[in-house]
């Protein structure tokens, strides 16, 4: 269980990146954060990763507050961020240095095979295409079997074919150990394809506008009418978030107050 408890982040220059974020994510749930640019999605993810500290509020992962990077939290960045001086295998096994070499190599070989990169162990990152590099990054994050996986628009720089194939790889890997996943995306279709729940955010300051339960069961067919309908609803919510300045939750609270 991952809980955001009244989370706010104000940068040193006074920019309010996030304000009053309250979300609970169940274990094994895939949560997508969508929203226009500047609404604090990436900031939120960096707080969960422990790379930045919240100004107010807390993030709890199974009752323990996250204040620094944790071993059971995996991160996939927007770019592959492979270390260019390490082979593909050493990159994928970067978080396994505490294991004996044989064990490490067994895990890495397995993880690379599952992202479709069997036989690429000895290559340098520079020899791989962008999609292949991102797959190594996915393997690197998942080979340590994290309880929580964070993804910051991991497929945004890739073409549509590569992206669709990586969605498949990712879901297959997720099925194995069912980590909790929080992913940031600006691609509504990607959110509908992968997530159990979609949280729409609004900018200045970054806050939650609305959230949407995804009624679709897996596997999801991008071409089915139900998928189309869910995607449309998500897009409508996103459009509203761009025109409405008041978050829906606040409005509800206000009207309730007026009624009283």
């Amino acid at each position, binding site marked *: 269980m991952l809980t955001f408890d009244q989370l706010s982040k104000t940068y040193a220059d006074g920019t309010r990146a996030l304000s009053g974020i309250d979300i609970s994510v169940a274990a094994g749930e895939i949560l997508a954060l969508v929203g226009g640019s500047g609404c604090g999605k990436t900031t939120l993810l960096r707080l969960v990763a422990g790379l930045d500290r919240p100004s107010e509020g807390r993030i709890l992962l199974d009752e323990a507050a996250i204040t620094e990077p944790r071993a059971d939290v995996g991160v996939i960045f927007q770019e592959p961020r492979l270390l260019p*001086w390490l082979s593909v295998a050493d990159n994928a096994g*970067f978080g396994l240095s505490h294991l004996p070499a044989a064990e490490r190599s067994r895990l890495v070989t397995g993880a690379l095979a599952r992202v479709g990169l069997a036989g690429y162990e000895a290559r340098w990152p520079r020899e791989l295409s962008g999609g292949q590099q991102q797959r190594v990054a996915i393997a690197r994050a998942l080979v340590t079997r994290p309880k929580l996986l964070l993804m910051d628009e991991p497929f945004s720089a890739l073409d549509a074919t590569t992206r669709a194939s990586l969605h498949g790889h990712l879901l297959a890997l997720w099925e194995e150990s069912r980590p909790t996943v929080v992913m940031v995306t600006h691609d509504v279709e990607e959110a509908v394809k992968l997530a159990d729940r979609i949280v729409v955010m609004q900018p200045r300051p970054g806050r939650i506008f609305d959230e949407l339960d995804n009624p679709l069961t897996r596997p999801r067919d991008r071409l089915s009418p139900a998928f189309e309908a869910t995607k449309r609803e998500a897009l409508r919510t996103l459009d509203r978030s761009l025109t409405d300045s008041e978050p829906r939750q606040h409005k509800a609270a206000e009207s309730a107050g007026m009624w009283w």
Partner: protein
Amino acid sequence: MSTIEIAEAVDEKPVAPQARPASRAGLRLAGFLLPVILAVLWEILVRAGLANGRLMPPPSVVGKTLWQLAVSGELWTHAAATLWRVAAGFGIGAAVGTALGALTGALPLARGLLDPTLQALRAIPSIAWVPLFILWFGIFEASKVALIAVGVFFPVYLGVAAAILSIDRKIVEVGRVFRLGKLAMVRRVLLPAILPDWFTALRGGLGLGFMFVVAAEIMGASEGLGYLLVDGQQLGRPDTIIAAIIAFAVLGKFADGLLLALTRPFLAWQDTARDRL
């Protein structure tokens, strides 16, 4: 464990452009064309009596002088003396430059304290130190080595400090996500990240080391290739001077090539056009 098929389209691999070996060797040889033609032309002109070869001796005379120096063993004595000075000066300059560069690159406090002074010292033409060094270290080896060390120090210092400051935050964050300790971060992320720039700085430093050894030896030495230069000037023998210049060029190129060969295995991962340079 699930198996996943991969879309063919995802799997294409970028193919590195590679020139054909034959044309590469040809291109390399082409570089010799101009100097060889000029040398042959000069030889012909002097032999035909169309030019006076006294101040600019033809290649055959220079070659003969070089041969005589080699046979008498003089050339090796001088080359060894020069090489020793460069090696000692380079070793000291590179070590101190790397240490201080790492210090000011890593610690803002050290940068604030040291960098302005070092930058100010850098503005002094290094040859200007010579009189002072001679007073301090005497007229023998120590002052020469010190001058070379100063020359090597600055490019190495600047290169290392700049390399540390320009380490990609994104890569460091990968280290943080995997919870590397301070030492592991240095060993597994920071050190490999600055390696290419450090090697480049060392090469630059070595080049300057050879510049400064000439200066140091011209100022006063009883052996060394720089002494050979002065000797040739005083005896009015331009062929000796040119022989010494050629020896300097060969020695410098050899040292640079050695450094390059020693460092190249560490940089096999680099995505650059370097091996074509």
